[in-house]
């Protein structure tokens, strides 16, 4: 049943997927980094899912169908991961097609670091926003959440870049442990955040009044 909900989260975008692809190409043409492109496209897709659901009274619809609230929330958290993988896959495929001509503005980061960075940004921003959206978003306010979430994702990308740059230049600890361990620690931290946020959203949504 979880798969049905994930499929629904992807299917309701319908032709908007073409728009997302066009935006992805646009950012690549303007030489934006992998982390930026993956994060912003994933953020747009994710928040549009909430937006479309809110416009269609999706909470009412899917809660009247044979699903539990736990499945509905879990599907949304799983969809983010699916979208992240899809967008990363497309970006990496396009990067390969362009034979590396498309390079990062922050060339000191390797591609794999940018990919992990985008996962970290999306995990942390979703961890912050999903519970807020489940708690407070309504038809009239959901668009504000969409904008704030996308802005947070963009800010998160730059935060990851500059924190990395600062730490590498000023703190010997990172240089000692190595970049691999550094990114692994951040990834584990963001996964823990995501798991905690998932639990909080479940708690919020289980007691949500679906008017």
């Amino acid at each position: 049943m979880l798969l049905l909900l994930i499929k629904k989260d992807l299917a309701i975008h319908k032709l908007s997927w073409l728009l997302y692809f066009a935006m992805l190409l646009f950012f690549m043409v303007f030489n934006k980094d992998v982390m930026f492109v993956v994060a912003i496209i994933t953020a747009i897709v994710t928040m549009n899912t909430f937006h479309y659901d809110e416009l269609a009274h999706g909470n009412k619809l899917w809660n009247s169908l044979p699903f539990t609230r736990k499945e509905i929330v879990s599907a949304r958290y799983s969809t983010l991961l699916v979208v992240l993988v899809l967008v990363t896959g497309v970006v990496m495929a396009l990067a390969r097609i362009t034979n590396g001509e498309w390079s990062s503005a922050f060339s000191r980061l390797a591609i794999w670091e940018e990919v992990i960075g985008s996962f970290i940004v999306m995990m942390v921003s979703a961890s912050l926003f999903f519970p807020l959206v489940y708690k407070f978003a309504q038809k009239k306010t959901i668009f504000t959440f969409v904008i704030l979430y996308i802005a947070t994702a963009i800010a998160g990308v730059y935060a990851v870049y500059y924190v990395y740059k600062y730490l590498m230049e000023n703190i010997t600890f990172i240089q000692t442990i190595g970049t691999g361990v550094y990114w692994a620690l951040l990834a584990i931290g963001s996964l823990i955040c995501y798991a905690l946020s998932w639990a909080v959203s479940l708690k919020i949504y289980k007691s949500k009044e679906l008017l």
Partner: protein
Amino acid sequence: MEHVIELKNVNKSYDHFSVSDVSLQIKKGFVTGIIGSNGAGKSTIMRMILNLLKPDSGEVHVFGMDYAKHEKRIKDRIGFIFSEDVLYDELTLHDQKKLIAPCYSKWDDALFHQYCESFELPLKQKLKSFSKGMKVKATLAIALSHQAELFIMDEPTAGLDPVFRREFLDIMQDIMLDGEKSIVLSTHIMSDLSSIADYITYVQKGQIVFSKDIHDLQENYAVVRGGIELLDRDTEQCFLAIKKTKTGFEGLSADLNIAESLFGTEAIIEKASLEDIMYYMQGGKNVAVVN
């Protein structure tokens, strides 16, 4: 199992409104209409039956099961229609069906197409181009295509034209032919109910005032009109609600025979319609004075 829905001492409170101590039993195989004015608590009760709202206290059982343990089994057997759109405007009906059909264990695709044909619903057209009536028909086609045993309809005919409302009621009557299905329908359009409902539950200010067989209501409730001199402490006891003017009164009595024996030919006594009952009950048991 005689009761398809059972609410026991259900309470739900908000800042300015509450549903208090609601106990209700909905019989299997019948149409139950839930009536009441806007904001009376009909939708709150319907949403608690669908588990969209959770009661602060009390129990809700559907098909003899509770939502805590059997949520999916219960919802698999329910068809629902709301007054607002719950379909995605950017999708076609075909797309929407593809998302919903796999959710039900007994989805019947042939039946769905049969209903779409009968309701003249275009499958390949975006739902945003559908009229309000078409959207209700689309929701109805979905609700009817998974062999639901219970239909929960919250103001399904609100905002629809009389022709479609009549069509809708005809469809409801067809659903009920096998005697196995049950419908709970909330509305404030009384004429819709008088033609299809078997039982009427009247909700006022978050409380159930009565839950009765519609024939009992139609046979026993009466509107009495007469001169003010006919009223005294004893005769007023016969009324559930009275509206007085300087010269006369109008009252709702729950017992036509008593009203006739009390007033005989001195007052005009007519059987009360559902609309009459709702109108007079609106003032509760208080005596309303109209100058």
